[in-house]
């Protein structure tokens, strides 16, 4: 049970029904259905160009689906965008932030966009900056930050309003081991607070250790979904990496690599 901006919401945090995206004749995403419950961490896996980012962008309202719909805390992202967007935080794969704002200014601005009361936003921003080890750099312009620092600043921005749903697109890319560990710990903490986390990653070890469920997408359609145990029960054997490669057709690459050696 969580609040969704217009009252108490008892249903799933994220729902996608028949999501489809066409770019001209190319069908990037083909009829994707998925459900994520509150407090659940779901890993969204797939090879390059499988449709992960397109799906996440449709779920967050950054792309209009050709067909289907996405619901965040019961709100249709296309029909009730303001209510739906108030409930989630999003970190894209490339965090293009306002380079000419300082870290503090950026977080204060995000706080206003998400209508966080000023005192609360100030307190929360200070906590997040300390957590991500950005307190000293927070008075400098973001354009001077390294890629990893910008990634952490984007994550801090996504958490300022204490979202009930979090979308992360490749969150650990460019992060040092300490920061990557911090994100893993943070995801665990968010799960205990009832936040639903939907994230894409290529690091299967993180997905295996962190996720309650994984969804594997290939060629624009979901080819497997469930817990690791469920995937194994379905006939797939071995580690998540083995299952992933069997499903997405990468297992034969070992033979190709042997030819190159």
């Amino acid at each position, binding site marked *: 049970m969580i609040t969704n901006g217009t009252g108490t919401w008892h249903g799933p945090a994220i729902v996608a029904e028949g999501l489809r995206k066409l770019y001209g004749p190319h069908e990037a995403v083909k009829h994707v259905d998925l459900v994520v419950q509150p407090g659940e961490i779901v890993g969204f896996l797939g090879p390059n160009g499988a449709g992960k980012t397109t799906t996440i962008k449709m779920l967050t*309202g*950054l792309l209009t689906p050709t067909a289907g719909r996405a619901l965040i805390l019961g709100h249709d992202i296309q029909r009730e965008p303001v209510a739906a*967007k108030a409930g989630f935080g999003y970190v894209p794969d490339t965090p293009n932030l*306002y380079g000419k704002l300082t870290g503090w200014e950026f977080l204060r601005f995000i706080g206003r966009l998400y*209508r966080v009361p000023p005192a609360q936003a100030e307190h929360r921003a200070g906590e997040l900056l300390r957590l991500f080890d950005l307190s000293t*750099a927070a008075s*400098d312009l973001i354009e001077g*930050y390294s890629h990893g620092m910008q990634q952490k600043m984007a994550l801090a921005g996504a958490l300022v309003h204490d979202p009930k749903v979090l979308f992360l697109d490749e969150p650990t890319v460019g992060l040092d081991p300490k920061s990557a560990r911090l994100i893993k710990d943070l995801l665990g903490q968010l799960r205990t607070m009832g936040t639903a986390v939907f994230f894409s990653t290529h690091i299967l070890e993180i997905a295996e250790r962190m996720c309650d469920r994984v969804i594997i997408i290939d060629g624009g359609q979901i080819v497997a979904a469930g817990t690791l145990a469920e995937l194994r029960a379905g006939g797939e054997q071995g580690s998540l990496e083995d299952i992933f490669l069997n499903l997405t057709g990468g297992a034969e690459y070992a033979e190709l690599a042997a030819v190159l050696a």
Partner: protein
Amino acid sequence: MIRDTWLLLTLRWQVGWNGFRNHSIGYRLIVALGGLAIAVLTIGFCGGIGYGAGALLQRYPNVQLDSLLPGAILTAVAGLLLLTSFGSALGSLFLSSDLDLLMTAPVDRRAVFISKVLDGLGVSYAILAVTAVPALTTYGLALHYGPLYYILALLALAGTPLLPEGLGALLVMLVARFAPARRVREVLGLFGALVGLSCSLLGQTSRLWMRDLAGLSTDLQALQRQVEAVAGLPIPSLVAGRGLTAAGRGDLAGAVAGLGGFALLTFGFFALCVWLADSLYASGWVRMQSSGTARRSPQRAARAAARGGWLGRAPVDLALALKDWRVIPRDLRNFAQVLGSLVLLPVIYFNLLGGGGRSSFNAVRAAGDWTHGQLDPTGIIIAIGILSSASFLFLNLTATAISMEGKSWWLIKAAPISGLELVRGKFLAAWIPFVILTTGLLIGAAIWKGFSPLGLLYGWFGIELLGAGILATSLGFGLRWPQLTWSNPRQMRSGWAAFCSFLAEAFVGVLGGGFLCLPVLAQVVLPGLLLPAWIAGILGATAVTAGAAWAALALGLAHLPHIGEA
């Protein structure tokens, strides 16, 4: 090294050609026709200058400027090329996205440098083709020069871009040792905009300084001595100019000496510049890779953290405006592009109050005794001047309001704000400074000209109403045709947005302004209908403004969900 240089050059050309080929046929056609139109206009202008100069020398042979003119043409173009080559060298040598790949590839590092420098030569030759070529050709035609002049002119033109390219690269190396390349590019953008505005400013104030020049006595002999002193300077382009003049007169020895000296100086300096710049490039590149941003001390950081400011407390729409007011002045290129025309405002304003506007006021007054009523018709011209110059200034903010977000647009699109809140925020970012500026200017004009309180109030109402309408319509068109993928702020304005904004400005300004003039007309022509004229004027102007703004904003808001989806 030559093989590597050729490989890298062909790669650059392939990338450029692919970029052009991947656009739609319509875009390619517009670019080709636009480029052709600009080229034809420039060729016509420069050809006209060359022919005019030659014809004047033909008519007044005692004015012996022919030793200077070809050199002056080449020097002016070389100066222009130096400016462009500095900017392009900065971009290609330090800011290009392929540098990481090239500097770690097993190709000669010098080949990377040389290919980047030579790549800029194409643009330089294109500039030469539309400026110096027509000017020197028509100059020779006007003076009936023989074929030797044209052959040597071609050789001089072929060598002219080398020195500016080499100097530009060397200057970039030197500047990049002391300042971050991105900051240099911002300063260069601001400098470029200010040069353009200064030229415009000189044109605006020409009457003032031409009056001063008219008082100077003309000593032709002294002028002749100065010309000869300048023409004798050992600047490569002036040396080439002397050779061309000798060629035109049929003096073969003088022509060969001039062009030979030019070739020696140009190639010598070019080789020296390239050698120096190349030796500085590697260290400059490494320095740029390792340079970070200076961090503030913990005390200063803590003080900055404690300053919450309005950005942390304002409502959503005002927060959007506050964000823009912080971001724009911090990017000098953006600032110059958006608000650079502010420099022109004082000139236009003082011209309106006491200079160029006076003759217009007299013409209005001559039409009859207009100043009996409460509304002084001379105020109309001042109001039009203030409205058009202030809206011209702030249109840059509204027309690029969405484009300005660039690659950070996802932050706005993923945020829980409605289209109306976004529009309000972007509108306020331009309209609040517009109101402050126009109110100040109008009050100043009212004190200076002694307008009645009613006239001042009515003028203020008219300016703010029409200004709001003009800004809102251009914001609507900016929403409909945004350009998010810009790397240079000049690319933020789309052609369609600019064209429709211009039409909307004309429509709101002329029709809305026409309605607002009704009471002024009525007080002279039909005093009995003054009250209906007041009502019709205010209602008509409000309806025109609101209608235009609503139509444009509705068009823009309908497109809002699709922005950034391409």
